[in-house]
């Protein structure tokens, strides 16, 4: 049974301060005009009435992280020989993210299928994922860029979260989703919330009813493959693209990375950093050959990966959580929903006899 607790709005910050004694706590607050998940600070205002500009992706998947530390040392017997010592550097400590949205937390489940597969385990990701808990806030307002209901989710979806917080008029109903989440709900600042459960369920139903009509994307995998070779289609939908990559960096389910080395004197590190499939360098080979030479090819792969290849590999699950950040933040106004729907509706022109 899930643990159900209630917290008054005024007690949220004191509760986070309690949690911050044991964990690194992140909550959404403004950094200039950007609403970001930042280390919790009692002095800072926590903003919960809108989705953050960036998802809390970096709490589990840092923008740049060290994979290997290495040092060079000269062999005293033979100074032309350099000995290299390489060590892994695993992340430590636990993190609590407060105020993630259902789409944000669900994004990590897209990572999980790839980073924690039966073929390979990414131990850096695994260490952070295991030790990062999400207290996710159900959405009471739906923006016109939101489409989580198209991708098998909803504004109260607990998938990928540890605690689901449902905003009520005087506070939040906190329902544990995982065992680790249940442990977070032991504070004296919280009171039993079971009596408010019916009210909370009703709120969730109302929100779900207010979101725009859903679309059936079950044909997307086949239809996107059907237009694969139609470069006119892809040139049209990518015409406005600036290849800036904002869509990838802001995406809770974009998980591509690059590996690079940096050195400083007799030391160095191998880093893993977010990469961007919209950049020409992403697939550029040393020979100069590029299998995705134009932005049309690259956008095709981005949309194809999320709505066709990934679902084909992973039992139909679309690798998009419908948060709409790529739509909201695209400087050129590209809407991924339109591209997918256009591919689904695309009828090849009849070949003239």
């Amino acid at each position, binding site marked *: 049974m899930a643990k159900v607790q209630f917290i008054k709005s005024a007690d949220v910050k004191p509760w986070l301060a309690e949690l911050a004694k044991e964990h690194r706590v992140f909550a959404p607050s403004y950094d200039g005009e950007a609403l970001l998940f930042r280390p919790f600070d009692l002095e800072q205002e926590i903003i919960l009435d809108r989705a953050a500009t960036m998802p809390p992706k970096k709490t589990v998947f840092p923008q740049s992280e060290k994979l290997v530390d*290495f040092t060079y040392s000269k062999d005293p017997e033979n100074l032309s020989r350099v000995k290299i010592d390489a060590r892994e550097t695993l992340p430590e400590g636990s993190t609590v993210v407060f105020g993630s949205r259902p789409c944000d937390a669900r994004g990590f489940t897209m990572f999980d299928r790839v980073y924690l597969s039966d073929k390979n385990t990414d131990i850096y990701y695994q260490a952070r994922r295991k030790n990062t808990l999400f207290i996710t806030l159900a959405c009471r307002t739906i923006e016109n860029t939101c489409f989580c209901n198209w991708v098998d989710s909803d504004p109260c979806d607990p998938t990928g979260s540890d605690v689901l917080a449902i905003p009520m008029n005087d506070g939040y109903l906190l329902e544990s989703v995982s065992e680790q989440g249940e442990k977070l709900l032991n504070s004296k600042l919280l009171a039993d919330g079971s009596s408010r459960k019916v009210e909370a369920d009703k709120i969730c139903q109302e929100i779900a009813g207010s979101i725009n009509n859903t679309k059936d994307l079950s044909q997307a995998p086949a239809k996107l493959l059907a237009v694969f070779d139609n470069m006119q289609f892809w040139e049209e939908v990518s015409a406005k693209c600036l290849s800036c990559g904002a869509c990838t960096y802001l995406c809770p389910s974009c998980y591509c990375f690059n*590996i690079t080395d940096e050195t400083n004197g007799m030391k160095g590190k191998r880093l893993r950093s977010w990469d961007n499939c919209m950049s020409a360098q992403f697939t550029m080979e040393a020979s100069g050959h590029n*299998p995705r030479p134009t932005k049309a090819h690259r956008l095709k792969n981005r949309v194809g990966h999320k709505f066709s290849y990934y679902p084909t590999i992973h039992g139909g699950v679309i690798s998009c959580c419908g948060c709409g950040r790529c739509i909201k933040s695209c400087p050129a106004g590209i809407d991924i929903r339109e591209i997918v729907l256009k591919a689904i509706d695309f009828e090849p022109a009849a070949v003239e006899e």
Partner: protein
Amino acid sequence: MTKNIYLPEMATIQEVIRETHNIMTFRVTLNNPEAMKNFSFKPGQVGQVSSFGTGEATFVINSPPTRMDYLQFSVMRTGEVTSKLHSLKAGDQIGVRAPLGNSFPYEDMKGKDIVFVGGGIGMAPLRTLLLFMLDNRADYGKITLLYGARSPVDMAYSYELQDWLDRDDLDTYLTIDAPYEGWQHKVGLIPNVLLDIAPSPGNSVAITCGPPIMIKFTLQALEKLGFKDEQIVTTLEKRMKCGVGICGRCNIGTSYVCMDGPVFTRAQLRQLPNEL
């Protein structure tokens, strides 16, 4: 404890062979004797070789699993990592993450006639399988090798070619693009020479690797000779980073070349979207 897929094994370069003006071969052993003893791989599998401070790049292990004194990588100087590797010498330390990827379907090839068609550095993956087959000679039928390069000085593994030519159990043909003084073998582009040799497609498998333009015309030549898509095996190249199907750049549709490849039959390639 779960294995760290990104942490390379430290390895020592035992020998460096200059093959051509831009290809060098490195024979390396893993520093941890246990790791070296327990290292196993299949012909066609690749490794990420790293020079710490510069980075990693993908190369096929071109020594066969039947000869485990060292692991051999042949490196054509093309970009940053390969240029750095070319500056290394015996005794230098590198990192190796291997084996990665799939392998040649050598079990399915048992009892069949084998036709190798290699161009330039594309001979490297073929060498692994060729030597593996020669070391298990009774398992395979007639073996034919056609190896071509621009000119004799562009031909890697020059020190073994005479042995291959001399063997009774291997039909070796060498070709270069244009006449060259003293050259006693064939002259002509690989696909044309292949049509001249005309190996029978009957109970055969053809394995080809080389630059894209050579592959393109070799596939056409094999088709002309009657080889079906299932009888043609090749290897693909892509820019790779993680080598284990996570980092997301080497996919062709749903297939990750680093993990599901690099070896594909022509029949498999036809199933993939057109994005080579």
